[in-house]
């Protein structure tokens, strides 16, 4: 692997650096490493999860102050005595950070996206003033004479010695993050950017995924603070203020917020630039002050206007090998367990008198329909008839105002789409909701999310490779089944729209559903593609799958469907065999207009 070779060369250079470089550069590299660790958490949070935090410096501060206080306090209460060493300090810092992150996350993540950053701004300011005003933390003067770390009997008193610890920790964090992203949990995290509705429909607990990445980002920051405290052997509130928190975010965004190495690029660039500007600008302006923030602000605006992806993609293009992700997939994994298939004719879905009102608008008015195993029911009607609203009621995206939805004999109305999906209902979307930058294979594997159970810790250590290969093998099988075998490594966004719809079907099938809801699957397909789609659906029907189909292509519908339900203005106007419906006067009037 070429990209592996590049990483290896990089690591060797890093290992040799402190032997060759003067003290000044080693110190600079130490700080770059510490900052990159924080920025790495922000890559996960902002670039990949689509959330953001300005308060990471406060988490760094918690890590630093926890260990500083525990290792220096003169009269610790007896129950804290076992923690009065650097490792106890690390543990205490991590626990405190986790508690705060969970609390902040729980408070803000249910609200819309901008509440987390606003919450973290408030929290960043509060903790800065708290550090500065608490007497036992030394107030604005801080805490000095923190003991050095010792590893296996060796005291790390020197910046060169510390260098190795910092960079080993950073590279380990990069490794853990990359592992996480290349896993079932990682796909769930990356799905956050594709919208909550899609991710939940695939059975992803999006609330939990958000908290998890916020927590990981906070813990990385905390470890960075712990290292900082024992490197500096002195802490005061200044490096943990809000403006530093903002700088961390800048590092991630400028480096390339969607790439783990972007954190390193950003941390390096900002740290070096800051060093240089702090010398240059005060001379230039003839006054002292942190004028580098002007340059950072302008740079940031420029990057967000012109290169929102940051520097890393641009760097990666220079080295083509680094840009292509190694495909970790072999498709020899054993097949996943399947749910029992209901016998043909078993009622799967029963909608009774479902009503949905949006204010005064009645989008669905006492709609009823049913789908059995081994049956294709087509739902048709003019645009605006309320078909998509009904889809949303059935799949749990919106609760019905009144009426009942039964799935496999149980009431499911009012339940979340994630819970309903777990019971065996899977869907596609009218407006394709794929993750365009992810490969077709990974998009489809997201559909199989519910069929794996390995969590985040196992994913970070890559202890779940067996399950992962089974998930990917299943995804590959579904791709093959729908005729996408040639495209599995292509980015989903690079396919034509018709093919993207087929990817959505493969993704839905990867969930091993017994009821499939397809929202206009044939739109944008060419004739031959439509034929093979019809063939696939017939095959699924023969296997006992129930299918509810919304479609405007009448030829496609009438050839395929066992029964047809026609909607207009939120009401059912006809139901029956395709031929009956075609000759129904009410249906003809709805489609062609009445004769006055």
């Amino acid at each position, binding site marked *: 692997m070429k990209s592996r070779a590049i990483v290896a060369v990089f690591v060797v250079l890093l290992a040799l650096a402190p032997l060759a470089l003067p003290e000044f550069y080693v110190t600079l590299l130490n700080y770059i490493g510490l900052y990159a660790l924080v920025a790495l958490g922000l890559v996960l949070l902002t670039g990949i999860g689509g959330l953001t935090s300005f308060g990471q410096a406060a988490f760094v501060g918690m890590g630093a102050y926890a260990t500083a206080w525990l290792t220096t306090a003169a009269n610790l209460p007896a129950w804290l005595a076992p923690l009065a060493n650097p490792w106890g300090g690390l543990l205490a810092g991590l626990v405190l950070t986790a508690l705060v992150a969970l609390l902040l996350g729980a408070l803000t993540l249910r609200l819309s996206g901008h509440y987390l*950053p606003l919450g973290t701004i408030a929290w960043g300011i509060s903790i800065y003033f708290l550090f500065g005003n608490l007497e036992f933390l030394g107030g604005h003067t801080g805490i000095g004479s923190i003991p050095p770390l010792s590893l296996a009997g060796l005291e790390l008193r020197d910046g060169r010695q510390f260098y190795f610890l910092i960079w080993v920790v950073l590279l380990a964090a990069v490794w853990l993050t990359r592992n996480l992203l290349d896993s079932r949990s990682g796909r769930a995290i990356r799905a956050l950017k594709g*919208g909550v509705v899609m991710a939940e429909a695939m059975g992803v607990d999006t609330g939990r995924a958000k908290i998890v990445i916020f927590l990981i980002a906070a813990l990385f920051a905390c470890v960075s603070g712990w290292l900082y405290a024992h490197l500096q052997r002195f802490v005061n509130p200044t490096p943990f203020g809000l403006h530093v928190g903002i700088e961390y975010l800048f590092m991630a965004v400028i480096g390339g917020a969607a790439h783990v190495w972007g954190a390193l690029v950003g941390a390096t660039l900002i740290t070096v630039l800051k060093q240089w500007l702090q010398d240059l600008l005060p001379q230039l302006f003839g006054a002292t002050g942190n004028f580098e923030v002007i340059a950072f602000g302008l740079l*940031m605006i420029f990057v967000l206007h012109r290169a929102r992806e940051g520097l890393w993609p641009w760097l990666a293009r220079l080295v083509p090998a680094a840009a292509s992700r190694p495909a970790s997939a072999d498709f020899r994994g054993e097949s996943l367990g399947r749910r029992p298939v209901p016998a043909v004719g078993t009622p799967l879905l029963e909608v009774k008198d479902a009503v949905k009102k949006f204010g005064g608008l009645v989008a669905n008015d006492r709609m009823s329909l049913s789908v059995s195993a081994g049956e294709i029911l087509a739902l048709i009607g003019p645009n605006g008839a309320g078909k998509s609203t009904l889809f949303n009621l059935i799949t749990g995206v919106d609760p019905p105002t009144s009426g009942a939805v039964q799935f496999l004999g149980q009431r499911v109305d009012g339940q979340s789409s994630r819970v309903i999906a777990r019971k065996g209902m899977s869907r596609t979307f009218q407006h394709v909701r794929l993750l365009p930058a992810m490969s077709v294979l990974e998009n489809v594997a997201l559909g199989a999310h519910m069929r794996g159970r390995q969590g985040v810790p196992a994913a970070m250590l890559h202890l779940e490779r067996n399950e992962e290969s089974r998930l990917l093998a299943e995804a590959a099988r579904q791709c093959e089944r729908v005729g996408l075998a040639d495209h599995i490594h292509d980015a989903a966004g690079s396919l034509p729209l018709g093919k993207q719809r087929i990817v959505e079907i493969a993704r839905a099938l990867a969930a091993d559903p017994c009821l499939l809801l397809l929202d206009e699957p044939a739109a944008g397909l060419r004739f031959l593609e439509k034929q093979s789609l019809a063939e696939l659906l017939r095959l699924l029907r023969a296997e006992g799958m129930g299918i509810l189909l919304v479609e405007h292509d009448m030829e496609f519908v009438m050839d395929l469907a066992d029964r047809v339900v026609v909607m207009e203005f939120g009401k059912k106007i006809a139901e029956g065999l395709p031929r009956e419906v075609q000759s129904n006067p009410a249906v003809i009037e709805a489609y062609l207009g009445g004769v006055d």
Partner: protein
Amino acid sequence: MDLQIALLLGQDGIVNGAIYALLALALVLVFAVTRVIFIPQGEFVAYGALTLASFQTGQTPGTLWLLLAFGVAVTLIDAPASLRIGKGRFMRLLGWQIVYPFVITVLVLGTGAKDWPMLLQVVLALAIVVPLGPQLYRLAYQPIAEAPVLVLLIVSVAVHLALVGLGLLFFGAEGSRTPAFSETSIDIGGLTITGQSLWVVGASALLIVALYFFFEKSLYGKALRATAVNRAGARLMGISTTLAGKLTFLLAAAIGALSGVLIAPITTVYYDTGFLIGLKGFVGAIVGGLASYPVAAAGAVLVGLLESFSSFWASAFKEVIVFTLIIPVLVWRSLTTHHVEEDE
């Protein structure tokens, strides 16, 4: 604490709260119309106060150079497009972005503005600082007006950082305080109400009423409201979202600069003071869910009161207490919100 002190603290709280309320209104307005979380709001407060203070000490405020520089930048960017539309549009661009800053510069440099009456100095300070708002919108936000809220927020933070740095460059690290608008004070049953607090509360109330009439009665106000409700729909009705953005930033800058002018006699303003003041307005705005004007204003007054009373009981923890207020608010918001947010 006796009644006397409580009344004094209450007065302080209401005066500060009135300023926070103004800022909260501006923040809600900017967010509703442009989806920008306007972190740099506070910098306009500082710029307004410090520009006025510069006149009084006989210095040339650096904001003047910023006005000129922004004018040149906007002209360079917009000249090709405006020439394509027509000569009239180009002349208007030159008029606002080149001639106007030039005239103001000549006025300031020629007269020094030091011995002008206070009221004229205030007008001149506003004439310099307020146009920075729409210029800022043109330069930093308009090119990415349709970007996600998160990107706009990060841009806001970047703008804030750059403006704070420029503030340090323009005004130095020293704080400034301007003389009060009026030295009179009223004595009511042992409570002394200063003329300046009456000025602040009165001006805030007047501004809020003016904003109410602007939004209810004027066509531009209605256009802004329409944009806030539905950007695409407003555009289809022929409302330019660009114009709406600039107008909103004009209002926000005016509210910010005016707030700065109003508080400059009460508190010492430093180049970075605006940020904390702006954020307190924010806490108020968040109480209103970034959507409701009256609730945001009430929240802001609450912030002011909380601040003044906590500065009495636990002055070192004043900021901690004010910013932790956001937590119960968020708890309440997250319990009352059941809506699953879909991406824009």
